[in-house]
Every structure is written in C-alpha cells, then in structure tokens.
C-alpha cells in the first residue's frame, strides 16, 4: 500500500518538490545578497536614529529588493498548489478511470486505503508547505525585523500558516474530487473555496483573534495631522496597526465629514490643522495588535485552517463509509 501510494503519486511529489526547491534556491540566492546588506544583523538598524551604514543598507534594501513584496504576494498561492495537486486526484482519478473498482477489491479495505492515502499525502503536503514557509521565514528575516511580520506578504507565508493553508487546500480538493468525481473541476472548486476562506479569515477574523489594544492621546499642537487618518503610531513599527481615528473632547468619534469640515475651518483661520485640533481638545486613537502576538496569531490561523481541513476530510471518510461510489 505504501509502495502503491508512492507509485501513484510520485509525479505530483516530484513536481511539487521541484517547485518548492526552485523557489527555495531562488530565495536563497537573492536572500543571501539581501542578508549581506546587514552584516551585523538588521536589528541594529531599527529605530529612527540609525547609523550611516544602516540608512544606506535600508535604502539599498528598498531599491534592490523592493519587488519582494509583490513576489511574495504571488507566492501566497503556492500552499494552494501543493495541497490541491495532492488532493484533487486522490479519489477523483480513481473514479474518473474506473480504477476504484480495481483498487477497492484488492485485499486492502477501502477505509485503510483511504487512511494510508490521506496520511501519506497529507504529510507530504504539510512537509512541503513547511519547507516553503521555513525558506520564506529565513528570507524575510531582515524585513521582518524592520517592518514587522503582520503584513500579507509576511504573515501569510511565514511560520505555521502556510502548512494550515496547504492542508485546507488538500482537504478541499480531496472532498471536491470525491463529490464531483472529476479532478479538474475539483481543483477549480477548491480554488474558489480557498480564496473565499482566506479572504474572509484574513480580512474579517484575523484582526480580532485577540482584542486589539488601543492608545488614545491628545493631538499635539505640532503634529502633522491629516483629516483622513491620524498619523498616530504605537511607537513600535513592528506592531500591526488596525485602525486610527479622532474623538472630540467629549469622547465622541469624529467622522471623516467632521474632520474635513474642521480641516477647512482651520485653513480659513490660517492655523495648522494639528494646532486647531489641539486647541479643541481633539484626541487621536490607534487600535493595534502588538508585535509579540505574532505566534499566537499564527497558531490561531493554523488552527482555523487545520480544523476546516479536518472537517472536510471527515466528510470524505463519511462518504467512503456509506459506500456510495
């Protein structure tokens, strides 16, 4: 059975292995160059007052490696590819070719057949995604130190999350394949589900995995205020800023309309917007997730996707138990 699993899926294993290896080799090559910009580690260059070498290094990082963010955003589909290409054919290919009748009338009970396949290919999925995220975590290390790890080009590709995404894609493609009995439509359905759940979790759930922290302060007279969003920061560039805003002296939130009206009034009076706000006791606030919550958030993210994957695989097991094929 182990041999059969390897023989049937070695093409996917080799192709996906090659994909991850290619990405790894490329990131290693450009990453070594990027890491060499910071001989003493990027940690020395954190903050506003940095040395001359540091500011040169940071400038070169932005100039020479500015493409990294876009590239990494593209890579966020790699976990899907890994999971879906293992999962989609797992059941669907047997149903397409009629070979399920051959496979499940050997002396291996079909539940055992399924357990071995899910176990082996699920493990391969997790390992490949793990290697992928390990390489990216290493590659992004200087950027993580300087810019934080909560951006979409960091959080979604580092740590435990990619393995969770890949397992979810694996389970979704397997389940879709078992229901639709076709590999290719299964991949399409799995992609739709993958994107939908990823967007939902990243945009709606993730900011509230833990109650965000909130800082409130009076707008300083010399602050470079902006009517849209207060340029308030938490003081730590690695924190994840979720929202900012103004409240008036009575604590009532100011709408964009209110702040724009105040901005025009300030201009009419010929005073700086910051000073205008300061005079009226307007406060600015920021809601954020502190940088040190990164691993907690990674665990929650991985648990959500791992849990969804388990539920989908339970659906496949249930379908096998009923023997409806």
């Amino acid at each position, binding site marked *: *059975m182990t041999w059969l699993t390897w023989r049937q899926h070695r093409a996917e294993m080799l192709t996906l292995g090659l994909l991850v290896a290619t990405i790894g080799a490329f990131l290693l090559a450009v990453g070594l160059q990027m890491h060499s910009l910071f001989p003493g580690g990027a940690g020395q260059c954190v903050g506003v007052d940095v040395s001359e070498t540091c500011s040169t290094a940071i400038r070169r990082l932005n100039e020479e490696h500015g493409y990294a963010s876009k590239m990494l955003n593209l890579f966020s589909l790699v976990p899907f590819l890994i999971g879906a290409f293992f999962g989609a054919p797992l059941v669907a290919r047997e149903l397409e070719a*009629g070979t*399920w009748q*051959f496979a499940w*009338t*050997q*002396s*291996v009970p*079909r539940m055992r057949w399924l357990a071995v396949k899910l176990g082996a290919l699920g493990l391969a999925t997790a390992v490949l995604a793990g290697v992928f995220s390990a390489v990216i975590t290493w590659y992004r290390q200087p950027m993580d130190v300087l810019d934080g790890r909560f951006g979409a080009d960091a959080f979604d590709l580092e740590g435990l999350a990619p393995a969770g995404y890949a397992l979810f894609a694996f389970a979704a493609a397997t389940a879709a394949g078992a229901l639709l009995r076709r590999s290719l439509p299964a991949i399409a359905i799995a992609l739709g589900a993958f994107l939908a759940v990823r967007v939902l979790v990243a945009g709606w759930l993730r900011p509230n995995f833990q109650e965000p922290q909130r800082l409130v302060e009076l707008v300083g007279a010399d602050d470079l205020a902006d009517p849209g969003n207060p340029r308030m920061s938490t003081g730590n560039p690695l924190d994840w800023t979720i929202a900012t805003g103004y409240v008036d002296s009575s604590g009532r939130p100011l709408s964009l309309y209110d702040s724009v009206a105040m901005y025009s009034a300030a201009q009419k009076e010929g005073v700086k917007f910051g000073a205008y706000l300061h005079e009226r006791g307007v406060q600015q606030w920021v809601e954020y997730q502190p940088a040190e919550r990164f691993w907690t958030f990674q665990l929650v993210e991985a648990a959500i996707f791992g849990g969804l994957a388990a539920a989908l695989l339970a659906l496949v097991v249930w379908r096998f138990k009923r023997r409806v*094929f």
Partner: protein
Amino acid sequence: MTATEYALRTDGLGKRYRRTWALRDCSLSVPTGRVTALVGPNGAGKSTFLRLAVGLLAPTTGSVEVLGESPATNTPQVLSRIGFLAQDHPLYKHFTVAELLRLGRSCNLRFDQGLAERRLAQLEIPLDRKAGALSGGQQAQVALALALAKRPDLLVLDEPMASLDPVARLEFLQALMGAVAADGMTVLFSSHVVPELERVCDHLIVLNHSRVTLAGDIDSLVDEHRLLVGPRTTADLDRAGTVVEATHSERHTTLLVRDGGLPAAPGWQSSPVGLEDLVLAYLRRPAGTEVAPTARTEVPA
C-alpha cells in the same frame, strides 16, 4: 442447506440511486463450484448487482452474503476470497505490467505472482510494457491474471468480453475456462450476449427492469420450458399463468410455457426450446409481468 453450499446469497437485495431503483427485491443463490451467467440488457442492473456482491456498494435494502460472510464488512479476509474484474477491465494505464503485479503482491494477503507471470508469459504479454500501451484484449488478460492470482474462491466478472474483438473474446473465454477447470472456483459473470454463455455456464440469472426474472440451473430451466404450437387463439393467455411469451402468426399461435412438461392440449404440438430463445423471451417481457413459477427465484442447486 448450509451457507457454504452457496457462494453467493441475496435476500430482498435492492439498491436505489437517488430516486431510481437500479435493483430491487432480489433474492437468489449461486451454488459453489458453478459458472453462473448474469444476463440482462444494458441498464438492467447487472453492474449494480455485481458491485453489491463484491462489497463495492452498500445495499439500500436486503442483504448479501458471499462465501458465508457479508462483503459489507470489507475485511481483508473477505476481500481476499473474492476476485473482481470490473467492466472495461480498468487498470492503472501508466503502470507497467510488472508494476501491476507488484501492486497485486503488496495489496493482497495471498497473491500467486508465479501464476500471473506464467499466464502472461503464455500470452506473450511483455512485463515491461505500460498497461495503457497494450491492446484491449491484452489489458483484459492482464486484469484477469491479476484477479486469478488472488486465488479467489469466487470470481466475479462484469461484462468481461464486451469491449473485445471476436478473437480476443475467444482467447479470454479459453483463459477463463482453463482457470476454472484448474481451480474449481465459483464464477459469476455478466453478459448481454447469449450465445457464448451456453458453452461455458451451467447456471443462469436473468435480470430485466431491475428485477430478477429467471434464475436457475440451465439444464433444468431448459427442461421446464417448451414451445407449444397450435391454432391461432386470441384468448387471454396470460391468465394461464405459465405462458412466458405468445407470438401469433396468421394461422398459428406459438407459446413459450413453463409448465414442467404437462401433456399438451389436443391440437397443440410441443417442442423443446433453446437457451438463447428462452433468454430472449424473458428479456422481451415488459416490466411488471411475472409467470407463476418464475416468481420463485430461489432455485434448487
């Protein structure tokens, strides 16, 4: 009779897909050591019946018992005693023949690799060729060799020759019959072609409109039926309860009856009926009609 005298027994077996019944109310027995043909038109429920028999499908109603055990348990022990060759003999097309043999060895409790290799060598099927590159007849032979190498007590074949050309059919049939003669296993196979059955089968099940319409030992079935030719009559013949089929010409009426050989009425001439005509008569019958004796589908072994 004890369970082991039957290789296969079903009781009220039925299978429904969504709202349509593929098979209903099927109670029959297949005695051990026999070669049984399951005959019916396309869509009659033959594949469903066979898949239920080998445990690939779960029944909606009733039960099925193979070699004294339920295939629904799906244990390695039950599976290892059943050999199954599905319709169009599906194989992993990108596996070489040698890899398919290795698959058989790694996925079975007992697998007689030597037997399979000898059979394939006799047929001059190269082991290093991919299954997809073999001819249809060769693929069928490989699938048969894999099924036989399990050394099953019951071999089930679904339309094994449907996609083969006449030469390959003959070769396949010879290979199958040679194996049966050597091993004495029970064979159950489905077909919609009647003539080739007579040479190889001794037991028959006719399936039509998702129901069993005739089942039994071929010799006794042929003995029980006969053709009666007499003057044309327009009487309601079905009421007699033994008439399987009536055909009328201008002057004569020909009846196929199942009356166990009662003396013919005056003016009627009796003659034996061939297996093919017998089967065709049952296949032509519309759904929902039953001849009294045929309603009893359990047949003495």
